[in-house]
């Protein structure tokens, strides 16, 4: 015995204001399927717009879902998405600059310090997260340790450099942290490599030595160039950087 299902008629919007739905409980007020967000007057925006103003301005929506009208308009405020800068720019993350700085670190023989005059912490943060991730792939949970050690290492280098350079030392903590973070790139590559090479072997020791010397050379070059008076203490600063990167390489190889 076939059962008849009562399928209520689906009414598609045909543009313009629909006729006011008939009052009365019999006629269900269906939302149009699928749910059509109220389109704002600006067709270029890909995001949902929850503005009261644009909702009021648009005329093309119809049969709006019968939610309480104060949803979605909310307290987001009257500013549209037109005036806000892009998210990355607002956060200060300049991806192009990060990419250029990373490329400049890759060459240990020619140190371009003009790029690094503008210190930023987002590149180092990405590197440190990548470092932690590779360590995690090797089975070691070192995220907190890496962040803590980077902080202490940059304080160490800050004190050493400013004391050595005397009254003219103008390396500030932000730049110091940024430089140490960027020059961590070879160590990150080392930790990626160590996933494929047998642990504790001779190969990884030799590669570690090379990468630590690479890091040291780049870091010393950048610190000496950027803080413009460390040239006569190059060897002393190089030893301090060497100790710092040796400490991080310990985390990788063991």
């Amino acid at each position: 015995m076939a059962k008849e299902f009562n399928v209520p008629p689906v009414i598609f919007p045909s543009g313009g204001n629909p006729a006011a739905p008939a009052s009365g409980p019999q006629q269900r007020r269906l939302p149009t399927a699928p749910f059509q967000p109220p389109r704002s007057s600006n067709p270029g925006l890909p995001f949902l717009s929850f503005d009261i103003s644009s909702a009021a301005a648009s005329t093309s929506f119809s049969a709006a879902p019968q939610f309480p009208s104060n949803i979605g308009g909310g307290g987001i405020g009257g500013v549209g998405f037109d005036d806000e800068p892009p998210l990355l720019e607002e956060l200060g993350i300049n991806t192009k600059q990060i990419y250029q700085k990373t490329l400049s670190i890759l060459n240990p023989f020619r140190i371009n310090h003009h790029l690094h005059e503008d210190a930023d912490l987002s590149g180092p943060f990405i590197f440190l997260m990548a470092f932690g991730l590779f360590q995690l792939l090797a089975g070691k949970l070192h995220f907190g340790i890496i962040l803590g050690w980077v902080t202490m290492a940059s304080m160490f280098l800050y004190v050493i450099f400013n004391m050595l350079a005397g009254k003219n030392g103008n390396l500030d903590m932000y730049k110091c942290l940024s430089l140490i973070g960027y020059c961590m790139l070879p160590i990150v590559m080392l930790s990626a490599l160590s996933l494929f090479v047998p642990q504790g072997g001779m190969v990884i020791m030799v590669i570690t030595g090379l990468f630590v010397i690479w890091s040291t050379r780049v870091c010393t070059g950048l610190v000496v160039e950027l803080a413009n008076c460390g040239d006569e203490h190059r060897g002393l600063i190089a030893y301090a950087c060497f100790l710092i990167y040796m400490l991080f390489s310990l985390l990788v190889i063991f």
Partner: protein
Amino acid sequence: MYEEFKSHEIANVLYATGSDILTAYGEKNINISRYMCVNNPRYYFQVNDEYVKNKLKLILFPFLHKGRWMRAMEDDSSSFKSAMHDINAPDLYIPLMAFVTYVLLAAFFLVLCFCRFSPESIGVQFSTGLMCWLMQVLLLEGTLHSLGGGGGSGEIILVPLLDVVSYAGYTFVGAAVVMAVRVSPHPVRWAHLMFCGATLWESFCMGVLLVKIVKRILVFEVPIFDKQMYSTNKRNYVLLFVAAAQFPQLFWLGNVH
């Protein structure tokens, strides 16, 4: 500039607070200025490559030093010359670097010989090393006080605190050498022998170094109003004690487990 200003402000506040507290307790004799005003740490970092190389040679082989042990004075006799011009001047760069090198080498040793590395072990080594540094400082301070006329008699020892800290920190050069010997690849049956030999050698060197430094301080830098305040015999025994105390200290530092 701002840093100089800040350090002077803080130093002044601490000095005022300290002297208030001590006056309240009736201890007027203690000259706290050398503890409260850690004056001018920049002086201890005026080093260059050549100074570091020569000073390391001096620390590792003090008995081969043909020159004098006196510290040179500035031209106007107001203060001592900085480390760049005088090999006998104390500095803080070498002790700091030697300390970090020692901690790193100890971590390497722990891994290579016991296959047991955790990042916490570096923290443990760091704390142990700091404690040892502190004990060395206390030993030197005790020596200077006991030979400088004793406490309570109004004698003032004018050696700045950071000087003593830096002399005490030279131990870590020896400790780093000992750890390097332990870490370097060598046949296993000689491991214990090499460790003992290296520690004995370094303790001897450190003993000689510290004795010479303390003797110079006592003879030249401390104003002793009555030269007969202590006997030379007593002085020699105390210096011998200082040298002998280096042996257990270096054994403790080298015994990483």
